[in-house]
């Protein structure tokens, strides 16, 4: 079947963000919806996450990644959404002309009335964290190791040191242990866990895998294959403390030191990027600074719960369909959101002045430092409190959300900026 040359909505990437967007776009009335995915199957990174823990919010069930993905893949296909698999999007113009390539379909050009960027994230590498030492085989990002083990069925090593207490690393610690490997140590440079607490309990503590906070890799040793990892303790400025070095024999170093939104395509399309998140600036419809180009999921900022990625996909898909059907050519008049003390970033970056007319608006917030104790999350316009929510604690590894109710419509309409603050309880 020959591929059409023009679509209402084209979604780049078929992870939970992309699937959610495609489904929502179709349901919102877009007729021709296409997903382009560079992998051979739909589902994104979920396909290699064979552990449980997906869908607790969306389905109140505890599903493995591929099962979670399957529900949306099934729905997308039954809705008649078209897919182009094993195809890589190379370039998108600001006017939404898309270039892609594939072994099966050749070089492809498509025009889209609206686009949803859902390319996910890539993992931070050894060079980005400036790890000294040799450059042998046996240094993998946790995600690459996860693919080797869960998709290809091969073990990338026997004795591991894991750098970073991110979720993927902790989940891989358990997975590799179950496969008979030895996890010598998980090292974390920060004084706190960077992944979610549940993963610490279920993946490290239950398997007696030692976690050392305020520690990092001082040096990688071994010329051909990793032979050992030298760890070191760090001070408040995260500088190594001389005399605390320790040689840990190991054949593999796994890096779980964070994800970076994958926005090379966004740049080509002229989309404005936030240096803090590494993702596009977005409004409440997940529309970027280029009208008609929307985005959803890890490409915008890094999520720890897949359910919220799906939700973001729904929002972006709906917005994209609306744009495609109306052909609005301009951006929306909006109010900026400002970060208060101890807040890393807020998504969306701005709310359009009319955003509260029909529905309340949920903000997604990441904090910089953990506060173990009750806190208020507050949204103000400088004079009035628009929303307030009590949390038992806040941690960098766990995103918090706060909803601005519709009754704040007038305040948003008249505001210059809105600020989100974290205030200690009492």
């Amino acid at each position: 079947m020959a591929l059409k040359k023009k679509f209402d909505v084209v979604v780049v990437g078929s992870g939970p963000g992309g699937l959610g967007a495609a489904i929502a776009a179709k349901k919102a009335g877009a007729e021709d919806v296409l997903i382009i995915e560079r992998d051979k199957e739909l589902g994104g990174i979920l396909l290699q996450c064979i552990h449980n823990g997906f869908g607790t919010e969306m389905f109140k069930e505890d599903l493995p990644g591929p099962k979670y993905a399957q529900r949306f893949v099934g729905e997308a296909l039954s809705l008649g959404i078209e897919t182009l698999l094993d195809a890589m999007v190379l370039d998108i113009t600001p006017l939404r002309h898309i270039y892609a390539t594939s072994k099966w379909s050749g070089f492809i050009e498509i025009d889209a009335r609206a686009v949803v960027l859902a390319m996910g994230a890539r993992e931070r590498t050894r060079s980005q964290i400036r790890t000294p030492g040799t450059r042998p085989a046996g240094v993998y990002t946790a995600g690459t190791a996860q693919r080797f083990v869960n998709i290809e069925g091969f073990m990338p090593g026997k004795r591991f040191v894991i750098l970073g207490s991110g979720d993927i690393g902790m989940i891989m610690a358990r997975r590799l242990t179950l496969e008979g490997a030895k996890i010598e140590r998980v090292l974390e440079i920060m004084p706190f866990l960077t992944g979610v607490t549940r993963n610490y309990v279920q993946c490290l503590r239950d398997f007696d895998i030692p976690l050392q906070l305020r520690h990092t890799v001082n040096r990688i040793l071994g010329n051909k294959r990793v032979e050992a990892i030298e760890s070191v303790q760090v001070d408040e400025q995260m500088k190594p403390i001389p005399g605390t070095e320790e040689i840990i024999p190991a054949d593999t170093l796994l890096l779980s030191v964070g994800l970076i939104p994958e926005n090379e395509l966004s740049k080509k399309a002229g989309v404005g990027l936030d240096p803090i998140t590494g993702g596009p600036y977005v409004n409440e419809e997940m529309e970027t600074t280029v009208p008609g180009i929307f985005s959803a999921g890890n490409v915008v900022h890094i999520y720890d719960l897949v359910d919220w990625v799906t939700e973001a996909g729904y929002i972006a898909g709906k917005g994209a369909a609306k744009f495609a059907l109306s052909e609005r050519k301009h951006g929306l008049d909006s109010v900026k959101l400002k970060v208060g003390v101890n807040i890393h970033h807020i998504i969306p970056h701005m709310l359009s002045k009319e955003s509260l007319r029909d529905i309340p608006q949920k903000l997604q917030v990441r904090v910089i430092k953990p506060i173990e104790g009750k806190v208020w999350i507050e949204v103000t316009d400088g004079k009035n409190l628009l929303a307030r929510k009590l949390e038992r604690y806040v941690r960098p590894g766990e995103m918090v959300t706060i909803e601005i109710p519709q009754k704040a419509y007038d305040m948003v309409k008249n505001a210059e900026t809105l600020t989100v603050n974290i205030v200690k309880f009492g």
Partner: protein
Amino acid sequence: MTKYLRSKTENKNFDVIIIGAGIVGSMIARFLSRYKLDILLIEKEADVCMGTTAANTAIIHAGYDPLPGTLKAEMNILGNRMWNTVAGELNIPFERRGDYVVAIGKKELPHLDELFQRGVKNGVPGMMLISGDEVRKREPDINPDVSGALWAETGGITDPFAANFAACENAVMNGVTLLLETAFEAFVIDGKRIVGIKTNKGTFGTRWIVNAAGLYSDDVMHKAGIRPEFKITPRKGEYYVFDSADISVNNVLFPVPTVISKGIMVTTTVHGNTIIGPNAESIQDKEDTSVTEEGLTEVWRGAVKLVPKLNLRYAISLFAGLRAEGNARCKNQNVNYSHDYVIEIPAEIQGLVNLGGIESPGLASSPAIAQRIVGLLKDAGEKLEEKSDWNPIRPARPRFRDLSKEEQKILIHNDPEYGRIVCRCENVTEGEIVAEIHSPIPARTYDAIKRRTWLGTGRCQGAFDTPRVVGILSRELGLPPEQISKKGPGSEFLVGKTKKV
């Protein structure tokens, strides 16, 4: 291919054996392949270009830096002139975009004059002293305290991997036998004449041996009893590579040089990435190419002095290379210099073409060094009859990311494997990888593919492509995935299968 090699080497006497397939050994092989000679090139590693040639700044120096009267200066100047032809014939990326030595603050200005004078003595054409304002105009991100620069229009940049592979491939196309994972161990000497060498793969007879062993050239010549006082001291230089999408310095910027090195530079590459480095630290271990906290810090300080707006956040790779610094005195008695190149046929023994201390600008000089070896052999009485079918042209293979969209379309139409992207950052296709695996010097490891195609060198550093490349290598070579390695035996990626697949 392997079979061909075996039958060719069995009980065979060669005319020339070259030890080391870095840029120097490979250029020599390529230049000698023009003549009716049976040539064997041996390399101890699993691929060519695994030594110093794999980690340097990739500059084709104009020639104002080496001291006048040295062999280094002579080779640099002659080599620089040859690059247009060599790069054209071998289809190597080469841009003669000129280079700058940048003075920051008034104090550094006099050094530019000194370099200019040296350049004039060495015979460097097209040099000019330009003002701070002019430098700021040409490189807006330069340190605003720039006071002037030496501009040399003949400076250039290349891709050292491409140069090394292309030279070697052209040699192989023209009949040179290449044996990888073959290490020279000792000479077979008959009286005062070398008649062969012993390697880990057996003994080979020969009339001539060329010592192009880089960091190990001192060991090789000592085994022939030549220059017992000659010593290579590895001098490490560390680097950062930046994401081309985020940092773009458009020029080749040297600082004012120090006594021991040309200093920490900021330069663009033929792939568009900006690199910074190298520092210079003498070490003991000839295999120690590790990067260090101290070294990286030194490089960073030096680089931001030239271009303050660099941002560590966009660093995507770190590496280190080892200069093979020798201690040979300059032959010219009037020049007080003790790190000159050795390029000679020593009188003490017959059959040895001896090289040593080929540190920077060894890449730039390599064609001239090869040409000089041809001359030395002629002088030693070799007839050197030209082959009628010598082909100096090494055709380039397509590089998807360098093509226009129209060209990409045609390439994919002709071979659909070029439609599948395997490296997402550098857009390297399956077609390119497969072509390299079946090329005249087959790529059999991950790094071999990386260095030929530039795959895995982008911002994700192979996180995406590694499992895919392991799969492709396994399929094309007919080997189980557990046997696929990063850079040869002992560097395999995988240790076994999972419990249940």
